[in-house]
């Protein structure tokens, strides 16, 4: 079973590496959206420092949502997904492996680049770590919840817009707690409570979301 999971992860990573422009598009989208905000709201450093966590979080959320369509679409189109459903490995575990691989190529780059972008907003150094840590804990939750939406909208017309309508309201708690971590740290309260809550969300979503997404896949493919 572990071998099967490793196989899924390695396969998805290799596929992503062969189409590396897809990965770059998501990262560039994130960079551009974040850079647009100072242009829109003005270069006042004090203002930028206050809005930085929120801006980075909203941009990361939108970027990871844009990438969601690709979690199952290609496998659905060429029939691989049906073979995975027929296979001996429980579908929930396969989904978990696919989501993990998807996070590695679409979520992790955002986490790694976020400190650099936060410098544009003149964020202090200790806050950079809290912000990156909150994104590192939060973006997997976004991928996990998003996988349910991606599975439900598989093969539908207008799937992209529909997906955002389904998934964005469910992202709200992650956004609030995630952006709150750096804000709490900035105000001297320390972001530990928020980071712990994000960790709890990650465990909760990790336990239940792959299973729900597997049910959704069976509904969509049957």
């Amino acid at each position: 079973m572990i071998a099967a999971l490793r196989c899924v992860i390695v396969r998805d990573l290799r596929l992503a590496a062969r189409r590396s422009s897809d990965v770059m598009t998501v990262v560039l989208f994130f960079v551009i959206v974040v850079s647009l905000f100072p242009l829109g709201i003005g270069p006042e450093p004090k203002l930028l420092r206050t809005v930085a966590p929120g801006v980075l979080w909203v941009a990361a959320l939108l970027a990871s949502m844009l990438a969601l369509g690709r979690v199952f679409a290609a496998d659905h189109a060429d029939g691989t997904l049906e073979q995975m459903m027929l296979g001996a490995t429980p579908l929930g575990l396969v989904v978990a492996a696919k989501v993990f691989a998807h996070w590695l190529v679409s979520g992790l780059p955002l986490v790694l680049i976020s400190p650099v972008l936060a410098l544009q907003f003149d964020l202090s150094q200790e806050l950079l770590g809290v912000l990156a840590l909150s994104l590192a804990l939060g973006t997997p939750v976004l991928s996990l919840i998003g996988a349910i939406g991606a599975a439900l909208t598989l093969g539908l017309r207008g799937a992209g817009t529909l997906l955002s309508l389904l998934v964005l309201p469910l992202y709200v708690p992650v956004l609030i707690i995630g952006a709150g971590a750096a804000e709490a740290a900035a105000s001297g309260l320390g972001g530990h409570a928020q980071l712990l809550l994000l960790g709890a969300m990650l465990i909760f979503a990790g336990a239940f979301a792959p299973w729900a997404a597997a049910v959704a896949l069976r509904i969509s493919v049957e």
Partner: protein
Amino acid sequence: MSINWFKYSSPQTFFPLAGRLALGFGVLAVLACAAGLYIGFFVAPTDAQQGESYRIIFIHVPAAWMSMFLYVVMAFWAGLGLAFNTRLSGMMASAIAPTGALFTFIALWTGSLWGKPAWGTWWVWDARLTSELILLFLYFGFMALQAAIDDPRRADKAGALLALVGVVNVPIIYFSVKWWNTLHQGASVSLTKAPTMATTMLAGMLIMSFAFWFYSIAAVLLRARCIMLEREHASDWAGHYARGAA
């Protein structure tokens, strides 16, 4: 004698029953609404602090209750449909969604109208307002998903799963928003009313919530009847009713 629990789970037997129930609850809704509005406008005393503007409470609070309650009922039917694979459960869930969205919208709209005289602003990012707004988005998502899927069986199941995921999320959303709000601005605006409430006010509010209950039941059953006819139009019994109505 054993009871057949599934007797009314078939559209054919439920259709006439739904018609009779819808009529009965519709009449009850009109009566309760008339009584509740009479108490609200003429019997209940003027509030000492807010004057007459508080009277919107008789619409606002029952609508907010119904908006949340209907989402749970919708998720209940959705779960039932997934568990027992009954056709009617999915139809009930999709019949409830527009009524739930309507009440969510009414609660937001009247809340905004009430907020202007009471707090001096149309909108605050209060925990309840925000979670009510997100609830509206959840209803919209449910309806949009069902509308996008052509096969009604798949639409029912996909919607059911979304409703169940949503119902798990609603408390998380509520608490995260509440916490976020207190972190930001503290309790500058409190929605809680005076601790003691005149008995007539409470009576008017309760009667209005019964009116909204009855209206919801009637509207949902009527909508379910339409969905049943639409989906089963090829069958004998539905054709019989469709011709009878025409």
